């Protein structure tokens, strides 16, 4: 890790990978419900996010922003400030909108349409979650490429702007992404614009040393974004940033993808199950045939005096 650190720019140069939640199911609900988040439609949301992206680019000449869309069936790169011509050179046709905005919006539209086509043949049950694991992996791949690109690279971080609820079926993939982010020292910041807290993102930010917030007033989202998430990693050590209030550490079981409080863990590969199995489905170890309830209780009794 020391070698990566020495290759960084000494300054506050940052590379921000922003994951945008484009889940149409979530945004449709968010637009209609008036009680707790008034009028945060997708376009309103973009009105907050796009100037925020611009403000990151403003802070330093070599700052870099990458936008990745998180859809229901797919994920995709939307915008990369390093590969596109400088914002000044590419002006949109109508002249009213700067290049970055029009390009992001155009690519987003294309992405949403493509994403929708993918889901046509499947019948949708309930309220599907976004592919957070996919977009996290894309972001990490991008960051790995940056790490290997040359002697000098900006300090990367990931910002998840998530609205839709967690998909417990992605538990393993998301956790793997989180741990690999932790290994490469990439903080995952998360900003939840949905109705309920996200256990995945709470854990992600907790483990990687990022910041997790769920804004109270969504109409001031821009201020939240600039107050908290525009802070470069160097300045974070001097500033009061929101502390985690509590982290939901619950895991999902591997067998039924349910979020559980208590369960069974394979002693060989640490897979999690919600009920007793004869054989671990992940590593194939054969478990003791004994009745789990009877073995569990004496175990506990033995351990309590020690602790």
């Amino acid at each position: 890790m020391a070698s990566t650190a020495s290759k960084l720019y000494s300054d506050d140069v940052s590379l921000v990978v922003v994951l945008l939640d484009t889940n149409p199911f979530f945004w449709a609900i968010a637009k209609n419900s008036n009680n707790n988040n008034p009028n945060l439609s997708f376009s309103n949301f973009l009105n907050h996010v796009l100037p925020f992206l611009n403000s990151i680019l403003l802070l330093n000449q070599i700052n870099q922003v990458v936008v990745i869309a998180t859809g229901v069936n797919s994920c995709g790169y939307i915008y990369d400030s390093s590969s596109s011509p400088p914002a000044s050179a590419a002006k949109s046709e109508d002249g009213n909108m700067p290049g970055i905005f029009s390009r992001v919006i155009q690519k987003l539209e294309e992405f949403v349409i493509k994403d929708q086509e993918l889901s046509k043949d499947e019948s949708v049950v309930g309220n599907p979650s976004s592919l957070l694991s996919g977009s996290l992996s894309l972001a990490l791949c991008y960051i790995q490429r940056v790490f290997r690109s040359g002697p000098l690279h900006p300090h990367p971080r990931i910002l998840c702007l998530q609205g839709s609820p967690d998909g417990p079926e992605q538990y393993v993939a998301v956790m793997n992404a989180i741990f690999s982010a932790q290994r490469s020292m990439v903080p995952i910041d998360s900003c939840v614009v949905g109705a309920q807290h996200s256990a995945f993102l709470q854990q992600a930010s907790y483990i990687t040393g990022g910041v997790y917030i769920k804004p109270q007033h969504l109409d001031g989202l821009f201020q939240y974004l600039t107050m908290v998430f525009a802070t470069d990693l160097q300045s974070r050590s001097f500033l009061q940033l929101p502390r985690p209030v509590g982290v939901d550490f619950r895991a999902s079981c591997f067998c039924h993808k349910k979020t559980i409080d208590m369960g069974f863990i394979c002693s060989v590969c640490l897979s999690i199950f919600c009920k007793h199995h004869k054989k671990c489905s992940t590593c194939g170890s054969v478990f003791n045939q004994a009745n789990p309830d009877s073995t569990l209780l004496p175990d506990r009794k033995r351990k309590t005096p020690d602790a």
Partner: protein
Amino acid sequence: MPQVKIIAKNFMDMVAALPAMKLDKLYENTFICEAVLRSLPPLAKKYVLQMLYLVGPITAKSMEEWVLADGLSKHRGAIDRLLQLRVFLEATDRKKETSYKLNPKFQDSLQKYLVYGGAVPTEPMPSIITGRLPTLDSLEAYALEQWECFLLQLISSGQPERPSSIGSSMLKVFQRGLLSSRESEAPKLTESGFQFLLMDTNAQLWYIIREYISTSQDRGVDPADLISFLLEFSFHSLGEAYNLNTLSEVQRNAIKDLADLGLVKLQQGRKESWFIPTKLATNLSVSLSDTSSRKQGFVVVETNFRMYAYSTSKLHCEILRLFSRIEYQLPNLIVGAITKESLYNAFENGITAEQIISFLQQNAHPRVAEKTPSVPENVTDQIRLWETDRNRVEMIPSHLYEDFPSKDVFEAASDFAREIGGLLWEDSKKMRLIVRGESHQDMRDFLRRQK
């Protein structure tokens, strides 16, 4: 020993030194706001962003709550800087509480920037008129060549027979600090001139630009105009052609001077003429600490004090000659040795050991740059030792007091001198006393009172 050292001060210090009225006027220009913002320390940048959409002032107390305890000094530094540049305006309310708010002009410009994005100061010229523009590589080669040529001139001006071809206004810039020219003698490189040669390119550029601006008044140009032009200029995109006719008279003159340095390439078409910014120009507003523009190194220093420089450049050879003995030169290799004599020569010229070492480290060949340290420790230590050899004697201007009328007066005087921290030496037997020169007045007053 007085240390002459060129401090490559930031461009922004000059901006900060402008009078308030002019500064406020400058902030109407979005580019200047952008450049100023980018030059700020990280914490200050963040505060600006945070306050950008706040209307009312914020009290200093509540701002202090933003930072952790160990970041307080950084916080103060950031606030000071913001006040210096008039990005923050200070106000004291009835309850004697200080509060800050953003400069409204600055705020306005930046808000526009965030919503509408950065636009180009002037549109680049269409390629139909300009024809084929030079490629980025050839442009960079051009800039480098021009820059080296200019530095070579600086070195060779120490040798009187060479005629100089730099424009007269640029030459004046150097005469101020780097060259000493008396009327009867040929211009000679000063101590700071030698130090200048060892700085890295960005620092050199800043130094020259700074001098260029501070001499602008002698040429009848308003420094504020020049600063705003140079800041705006650094936002032109690399390798595009811009029409010269869109510039004002002052700007056109400035462009010509910048072309001498290789910041722009001037080209003449059939009807119009245009300029193409090079990499040197676009780096102008990047802060000094940035090292992204650093060139590849070329020097290998061995533990036996021999130095191999893989370079074909005459400039490099001249620079190395400043502190080493060049032994022989092959088409792509310069071989030299760092000797006591060559270093003494350098020290005579006012170059310090630290500057030589940092030059060697910064220009280390990629193969040795991977190692730590990139320059062998015994070499760096020896360079430092040889420098301290010269500094064994310290000179302090002082006064000798003797012939005191009585022992009491002598003792009172020596006690007093010790008290004010000026006593350097005393001999109580012969009643003699040596006191620092700056304490002389106090001593005289004291002795007079004794009488």
